[in-house]
């Protein structure tokens, strides 16, 4: 039996390696996607186009305005003197935000009355708007502090962000991206492998040999496992060395987690492969699985923000667990005890899907 499996595994590796197209496809797209998305996926907002509608000429107003001008988050592109101009500019997205200081601002401030400024934000890009809002708040806060002097400061808020003191979104995204790129590669390899053999006719030749269904599955799983390891580690290394993401956790834990993750991904790929009769259908299956799974995994948006039913669904998604583990290991030095609650559900998913695939395989042989 081992001889048979060994022959099969060797053949799978040779096939992947000798086909120059699949060799290229395993290397180039992940790299390209890594570079592109690492650079693109940023939650920071910089150089936001700001418009100024300042109706007050006095010093306090000007001082506030100059703080906005000096801030790296904003970039003043226009000044308006009437509401219509402001509306047009926001409508046509010439500016992302407009700072409106009313006529009575300086007078109110001097008299100790509540002084207010308005920040008009383009709600079409609500995420950016929220971020800009918090930047603006920061600028105003420091203005308040400077204006009032330390004595009247009522509040001294120190904020600290654990694990990511600079709020660097790349630190947040890249560990997740590692996971996503790995599963895309694994799914495409496994889902297409059986479908392709079936289309070429080589699958039939396999079925006539003494290979049992379980052996065929093992033969397909092991190469995918190896490739998963290599991809994940290479991308992780790139994330650390090229993009400066720290890796404070245990490499052993990382690889154990990857192993479990890849097994569950292979299981899913093989199930898709058993159901699909042609490569086209296999591609469709992978698409249909990945679209919601990638988005609902905590990769970009926190799971905690999702409605309860969606959160419940993510429990079935191995990407969710691996993303949490990945971030934990990269940034938090996650200990084994805390990793375990993420590991066992993935292992369970893996067992179920691999078992299901075996069953489907044997049935297909009928």
């Amino acid at each position, binding site marked *: 039996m081992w*001889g*048979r499996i060994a*022959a099969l595994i060797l053949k799978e590796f040779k*096939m992947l390696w000798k086909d120059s197209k699949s060799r290229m496809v395993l290397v180039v797209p992940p790299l390209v996607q890594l570079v592109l998305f690492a650079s693109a996926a940023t939650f920071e907002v910089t150089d936001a186009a700001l418009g100024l509608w300042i109706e007050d000429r006095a010093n306090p107003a000007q001082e506030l305005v100059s703080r906005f001008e000096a801030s790296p988050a904003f970039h003043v592109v226009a000044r308006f003197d009437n509401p219509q101009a402001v509306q047009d500019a926001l409508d046509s997205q010439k500016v992302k935000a407009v700072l409106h200081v009313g006529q009575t601002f300086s007078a109110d401030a001097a008299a100790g009355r509540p002084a207010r400024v308005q920040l008009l934000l383009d709600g079409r890009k609500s995420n950016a708007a929220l971020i800009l809002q918090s930047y603006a708040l920061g600028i105003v806060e420091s203005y308040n502090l400077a204006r009032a002097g330390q004595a009247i400061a009522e509040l001294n808020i120190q904020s600290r962000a654990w694990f990511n003191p600079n709020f660097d979104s790349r630190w947040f995204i890249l560990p997740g991206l590692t996971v996503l790129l790995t599963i895309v590669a694994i799914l495409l390899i496994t889902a297409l492998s059986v479908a392709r053999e079936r289309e070429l006719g080589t699958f039939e030749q396999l079925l*006539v040999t*003494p290979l049992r269904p379980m052996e065929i599955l093992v033969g397909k799983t092991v190469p995918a496992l190896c490739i998963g390891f290599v991809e994940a580690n290479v991308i992780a290394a790139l994330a650390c060395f090229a993009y400066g993401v720290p890796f404070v956790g245990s490499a052993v834990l990382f690889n154990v987690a990857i192993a479990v993750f890849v097994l569950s991904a292979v299981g899913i790929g093989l199930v898709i492969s058993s159901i699909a009769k042609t490569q086209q259908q296999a591609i469709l299956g992978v698409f249909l699985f990945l679209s919601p799974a990638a988005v609902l995994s905590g990769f970009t948006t926190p799971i905690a923000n999702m409605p309860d039913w969606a959160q419940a669904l993510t429990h079935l998604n191995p990407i969710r667990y691996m993303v949490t583990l990945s971030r934990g290991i990269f940034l938090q030095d996650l200990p084994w005890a805390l990793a375990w609650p993420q590991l066992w559900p993935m292992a369970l998913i893996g067992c179920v899907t691999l078992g299901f695939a075996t069953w489907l395989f044997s049935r297909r042989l*009928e």
Partner: protein
Amino acid sequence: MPATVTLTGLGKNFGTMAALSGVTATLAAGQITGLVGPDGAGKTTLLRLIAGLLTPDSGTLEVLGHAAENRDAVRGEIGYMPQRFGLYEDLTVQENLDLQADLHDLDRATRRERFETLLQFTGLAPFTGRLAGQLSGGMKQKLGLACALLPRPKLMLLDEPSAGVDPASRRELWRIVRTMAGTGVAIVWSTAYLDEAERCDSFLLLDRGRLLASGSPSDFTRQLEGRTFLAELPEGQRHRIQRGVAALPPIADATIQGRSLRLVLKAQSALPDLTDVMGNSATTRPTRPRFEDAFVSLLQADRPPIAAPPVQEALTRSADGIAIEARDLTRDFGRFRAVDKVSFSVKPGEIFGLLGPNGAGKSTTFRMLCGLLAPSAGSAHVAGVDLGRARATARERIGYMSQKFSLYGNLSVRDNLDFFSGVYGLAGRRRSSRIAWTIESFDLESVVNLEAGSLPLGFKQRLALGCALLHEPQVLFLDEPTSGVDPLMRREFWSRIGGLAEGGVTVLVTSHFMEEAEYCDRLGIVYAGRMIASGSPDAMKQRFVTAELPEPTLEDAFVGLIREHDAGGQDAAAA
């Protein structure tokens, strides 16, 4: 007759490969021109060039008075039927016809009139509402023809229209096409069946892109007058004798035809003394030459003689008396019964042929016997193992060669051999010696490190057969092993199989080619899911000897059997 199509020095390249080179011919109206040759000869390329789907790289091509560049003018006057009939399977018969009518801009009145004629002609009138995908092979063919005929073209191009279809439907098709030719249509019928070539008015023989011969088939065959003979074979050892005779210098070709050996002499040779090889009882009589004989002698002039393969050593045999046994084998797909209580048995060392048209249940039966499909009822025993119970064990004793090349094309020959030997559990010394044996016996030394998919067809075939034999199986299953191969390669292949059978390997083979059936010891004819006849090829032919037909071919026998079966069915229904 004015020429409908004129080719001069026509050539077409795909990359560095010359699919066609220097083809010169004229095709006339009202004639059926046969385009003959094995796979890869260039038949489809030539048809596509004439149809305007490809542009020539060299030479000139004139169709219906228009040059190659001006093709759009005559699209409406050419009917083209590609290899898989070009039908939309999820459209009904009527819808397919309507689509063609729309494409050719036929108005309502013309349409209705032509539909009626064609549906009558092809017998498809009662099936207009059926989805094309649900028609039988023969009916699909007729529909394809009807669609191509709809615009009343002046030129009809048919790409292997009779491939895989039962002989009765094939004859009907000929009848239809013959009638068309009578109305002045020029017809090009491409085929790999050499007996069809004989029925054409003129022919073009292609081999590897070159035109080997053309003209009238009878002239071509007449060259071999006086050079063809039939010799009676003694009992047993048919293959050994065939090899011995084929090796004699004056003999151009020696093939097994049932109980006889068909001999073709080389030009200017006399019939040699056969007593050494065949024993004293050798009797010979002259016989009418066939198209294939002329083809083979032409090819042989072209190619170096193929070395006779080494004789197989006797392989381990099972103690049982029966190598393959099927008892009441049945298979259902939903409500459709594909195979209905098929029973037969094969002795060790026998070559058994399963014949029948596509969709008759032959492939399903075959697949059940090699363990690819489970029977719905009945039992199958192969090499002493009950397939219902121990399929994996059975597979260790079975070798399989599929119709399409099903090895790993982007791996090298050696990689494929390594893989299959590993998968069949060969290790260590045994593995290396078997691989070495395969490479040597099948002449694979020169290509051992090349990609399997890039090899020419003959090498691929030998590799596939070699991989099937690595583990010294007791039973060999061959699914249409020589489809698309030229006659010489076919002979070489069968001579190897013969050697294996003599060594005790049991062979189960399926085929469409009736001549191939002659190599078998016994045949089983599968039709409509049942085995309607079984026995030796000669016994089957014997049943249909009549005054008009003193020497029936296997195809005549086949058609007769089917006719009997259908008539019997009607009687039973009437009773």
